[in-house]
């Protein structure tokens, strides 16, 4: 094989990659924030004891978790306009990513709430804590510490999922690669570079994850379960 690698196409167009990476970052951040809100609401519904809310939420979770994101994206991007809901590519991308992340985080947050022993809440009530303060001061941190590994993992998967939105012409990191690929023959160099960008994002998230663990969840080392 006489192929010589030439990454000059990457350097010449580095601005394109960075712009794409920024959009990937922005879409991820917004979708994860919305998804987390959905997840908290979903977890509340799942643990509410109300059968109907629980059933609806469970159906949502199982449907999303057992169908490909690509189909969800196409359903929203091509389907919703048929119902008169106009969405541009970026809005459709954010909407479908949020719905997707919401389903996964519903189950994660629910597991976190259920991981708190009943005695913790009882002790707080006996001390006179009201529900909101019980959540804020007694449940929140231990629950987060129990689920944060799963949550970080899901955040990483969500960021990787965002690459799929390039398929509806959202100009994210992957789209930048596609664009250049259609103009040059340096496919390997281009897509490899895109991969490195994703890897970098993943490592940054992992790094933040470790930092949060050491900063806020040190106690978890000692609490035997």
């Amino acid at each position: 094989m006489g192929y010589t690698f030439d990454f000059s196409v990457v350097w010449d167009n580095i601005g394109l990659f960075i712009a794409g990476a920024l959009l990937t970052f922005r879409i991820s951040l917004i979708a994860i924030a919305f998804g987390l809100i959905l997840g908290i609401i979903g977890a509340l519904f799942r643990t509410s004891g109300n059968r109907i809310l629980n059933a609806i939420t469970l159906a949502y979770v199982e449907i999303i978790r057992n169908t490909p994101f690509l189909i969800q994206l196409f359903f929203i991007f091509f389907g919703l306009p048929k119902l008169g809901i106009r969405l541009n590519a970026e809005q459709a991308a954010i909407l479908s990513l949020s719905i997707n992340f919401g389903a996964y985080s519903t189950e994660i947050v629910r597991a976190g709430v259920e991981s708190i022993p009943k005695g913790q809440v009882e002790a707080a009530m006996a001390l006179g804590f009201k529900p909101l303060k019980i959540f804020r001061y007694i449940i929140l941190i231990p629950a987060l510490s129990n689920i944060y590994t799963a949550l970080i993992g899901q955040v990483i998967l969500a960021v990787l999922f965002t690459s799929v939105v390039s398929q509806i012409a959202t100009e994210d990191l992957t789209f930048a690669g596609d664009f250049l690929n259609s103009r040059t023959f340096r496919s390997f160099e281009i897509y490899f570079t895109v991969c490195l960008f994703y890897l970098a994002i993943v490592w940054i998230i992992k790094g933040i994850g470790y930092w949060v663990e050491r900063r806020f969840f040190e106690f978890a080392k000692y609490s035997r379960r």
Partner: protein
Amino acid sequence: MTQFEVSKGGTATATEAAIVAQDVEKWYSNGFHVLKGVSLTVNKGEVVVLMGPSGSGKSTFIRTFNALEPFQKGSIEIDGIPLTPKLKNVDAIRREVGMVFQQFNLFPHLTVFENVSIAPIQVRNMPKAKADEIATQLLERVGILHQAKKYPGQLSGGQQQRVAIARALAMQPKIMLFDEPTSALDPEMVREVLDVMRSLANSGMTMVCVTHEVGFAREVADRIIFLADGLLVEDTTPAEFFNNPKSDRTRKFLSQILH
């Protein structure tokens, strides 16, 4: 009859009685009739030990006193405040009543010191400096001050339970409830917890303790209540209870725990 009831709930006892429970009945949501009409009056400064076989309803009964368990029939008054589902009363009553649990239930994410000071700060809105002062005093009193910066998970069971007592005391309750505070402890740690409870009793605290520690009951309790199958079987002095039990049920129980 009416006269009798009036005098019981009237002015004469209102100042004396810390807890007045009358004909308390409770069913769990699965229909299980756990309390079948239990009446008990605990006077201020009294130490009452609650005994009974497993499943007799001891925990359920004392947990009604601070509204951790709702009940369906009868009435409970804590320090003159009727225990109704009204939130205002529940708040007032939980302010008066501290509780210590079998499993300690310390907050794992807070240091020992924060475990003791958080409720005064967050529930009582006490200035932090004041709450810290109280926490320091109480931890000193239960002998854990040198471990104040550690997390509960780093302490032994006995130490954790002493912190739990300090945490409850930090709210300056008038009544303390103990639900088998030493049952989850290794034998060598039981003493240190009982010592703290004993000194608390000597200081005049009103206490209701579910415990099977016979030595503690004989020495510290003013009265022993024996509960079986959701009914109050005996309400008597420790000497009477251990030396001269009235019912067969009590004798059977004593023969089981006395060795």
